[in-house]
Structure formats: structure tokens, C-alpha cells
């Protein structure tokens, strides 16, 4: 068979493209199938880690996470499945929400934990995000996360302002520093926190009815 003649035939490009696409997609599904479980495992690991981080529960390694999680998450809300009751290192039981909201480039998923009295944040743990590495991505960094730990919640919620950019450690003002150069991500992330505060307050009010 003359290869050149074959290549200029009407059907060859169609058949070839179909076959090669089929082959590569088959190859990819094989690779994916191989790794699917590990990826799902990693995903739940991230969620569990975030819940522990939101409650400032310390753990030495990833291996300890699963058992520590089972030990400390003592209950789930009866109304919805993304609210947990978590016992922290000091023995207090906190209310932790697993929430998602719009970031700048994609969805940000985080665990946000509150004191049972509803007046303070315990902490936040990020599950996933699609923000720019080095800019919006800095929401995961220690200095940024530390601002939320033990922060008092004012009537309007938490405010994110352009501050020193190195972290507002005043726990009584309800204000945190935004990330320098990541104004939008900071304010969108803050909106997720405030929306969760509203949910928490509604849930609290409902529980007291």
C-alpha cells in the first residue's frame, strides 16, 4: 500500500484521528484508573487535615490524621452534613463548617471553626483553591491563617483590610490583614468567612428555638 496515496485519501485522516484519540484516551483512563484511589484518599486527607487545622489540633504527620480525626470529630449537625462538632486540644467542643465559595480563579474550599458561643473564630484550614501561587495562594500560609485563630467576631463579621501585609495579630478588633498584591482573593475569601458566620448565627438561633 502506498502510504502517500493512503494519506491523501478522504477517509484516512478521519480514521487515523479517531484511532489515535481512542488509543490515547484509553491510555489515560488506564493511568487514571491506576491512581484513582490514591487521589480520592488524598482528597479526604486534605479535608480531614483542614478540619484539624481549623480547630488548632496539632498532629505530627499525615499518618496520624485519620485516627486523630475519628477521635476528635464527635458529631455532625442533625440538619446538614457539612457541620461538625470537634473536640480540640483544650477539650472544648467547637462547631466546624466545611464550606466552599468563589475565589478569584476557582472554588475555595475551607474548614472554618467557631467557639460554641459563636463569638470567636477558632481557626481556619484550607482544603483546596485555585488561586495564583505566591499571591492569592498565600491564604494557606501560616502568617495569614494565624490571624483568624481566636479572632473576635464583631457585629459585621470579619473585616479584611490592607494592613501591614504581615498579619494583624490583634484578636479583639475583628480585623485581618489582606494579602499584599492579592486584594481580590483576600476579599473573596473574607466573604466566604462572613457568609459562614451568617450561617453559623442562623444555625445557632435555630438550635435555641
Amino acid at each position, binding site marked *: 500500500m502506498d502510504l502517500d496515496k493512503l494519506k491523501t485519501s478522504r477517509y484516512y485522516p478521519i480514521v*487515523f484521528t479517531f484511532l489515535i484519540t481512542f488509543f490515547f484516551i484509553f491510555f489515560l483512563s488506564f493511568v487514571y484508573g491506576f491512581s484513582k484511589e490514591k487521589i480520592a484518599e488524598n482528597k479526604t486527607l486534605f479535608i480531614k487535615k483542614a478540619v484539624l487545622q481549623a480547630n488548632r489540633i496539632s498532629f505530627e504527620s499525615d499518618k496520624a490524621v485519620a485516627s486523630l480525626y475519628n477521635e476528635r470529630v464527635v458529631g455532625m449537625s442533625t440538619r446538614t452534613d457539612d457541620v461538625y462538632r470537634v473536640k480540640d486540644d483544650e477539650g472544648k467542643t467547637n462547631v466546624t463548617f466545611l464550606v466552599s465559595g468563589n475565589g478569584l480563579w476557582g472554588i475555595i474550599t475551607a474548614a472554618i471553626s467557631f467557639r460554641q458561643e459563636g463569638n470567636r473564630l477558632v481557626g481556619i484550614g484550607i482544603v*483546596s483553591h485555585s*488561586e495564583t*501561587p*505566591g499571591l492569592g495562594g498565600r491564604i494557606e500560609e501560616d502568617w495569614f491563617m494565624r490571624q483568624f485563630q481566636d479572632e473576635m467576631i464583631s457585629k459585621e463579621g470579619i473585616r479584611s483590610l490592607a494592613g501591614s501585609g504581615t498579619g494583624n495579630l490583634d484578636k479583639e478588633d475583628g480585623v485581618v490583614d489582606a494579602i499584599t*498584591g492579592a486584594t481580590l482573593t483576600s476579599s473573596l475569601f473574607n466573604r466566604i468567612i462572613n457568609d459562614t458566620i451568617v450561617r453559623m448565627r442562623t444555625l445557632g438561633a435555630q438550635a435555641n428555638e
Partner: protein
Amino acid sequence: MNNQMIKIAKDYLWTNNAVIVQILGICSTLAVTNNVRNTLIMTLAVVFVTGLSNFTISLLRDWIPKKVRMIVQTLVIASYVIVVDIILKAQLPDVSKALGPYVGLIITNCIIMGRAEAFAQANPPLISFWDGIMTGMGYLFVLIPIAILREMLGFGTFWGIQIMPEGFTPWTIMVMAPSGFFVLAIFIWITKSLSDKRRAK
């Protein structure tokens, strides 16, 4: 074979470097180089993908009809990038989380498509593989110094370890996109002056 391999190596590491001479692959150069660890992973991924896609396309070159050439090349490149993405998600989830969407964006890196078109289409598989690897290494050798500088000045760290003294105020602009532009431009300026001087001798 060996002479050709050495020539290719010299070409892509210096004379015809994909980033600083051909000015290709600039978008990713600007985006991920604010951090050495992310940059190393990215550039290794590019080396891997360029080498393998060059190899694969070269194997198929006699069979690919001219009309669907670019489609097939994109398919091959995308497949390898997805493999890298899956491997990162499964084995190095923290890195995958840090790099986020940028791994997927390797598919759009013009360097890879450029090599497929210019070399793999017309050359045997093994040398195409070498060509791909060397092009990727040229890219790596440009991005890593830029990343070291940007991370050092922008965060005060190297690979996450604090190396600048306590009193150092980080130059946050080094973390942002504009610095990618001018650090790269300065890099090209220096390397071009050096190579011009060498040629003049």
C-alpha cells in the same frame, strides 16, 4: 549520532535557548517563578513532557496526515501533561495543590508544540527525544535562577528556608507578575551581552 547530540545540547542550553533566545514559553516563565520548589517541579514536568511528546510524535510522523498534524500533536502533548498531573495528584498532593492549574497550562506552552513541529515531524525518535529533553533543560536552566532571585528577594527564603537576615523587608513586587517581566528581561540582556561579546572575539 554523538556529535549531533552534543550540538543539540549546546544549542538548547545556550545558543538557541528556547526562553532567552527564541523567546518562547514566556507565560509560564512569568507565572510560576516566584518560588523555587514550584519552578523545579514545573520545569521537570516540561522536560518530561517535551521529551516524551517529541519521541511519540516522531514515532508517528510517517502516519500523521498533514491536515490533522496540529490536532494530533496537541493530543499527544495534552495526554502526557495529564499523566504528569495525575501522578502529581496521587504521589505529591501538596505540590499539586501548590501548583494548581499551572500544571495543566503546560499543554499551552509553545515550546513543546514548537519542537514537535520543527523537529519531531522530521527526525528519528531517539534524537527527537534528546532534542525535547535538551529544550526542556534549557528552559529549566533559565527559570531556576530567575526563581531563586525572585524567591530570595520576594520572600527572603530559598526552598522555603529563611536565608535573608531578620531585618530584611521582602520586596513583594518580586512575588507579583511584573517582576517576572523585568527579571527575565534583565536575564536576557545579560546573556545576550555575554554571547555578543563572545561572538565579537
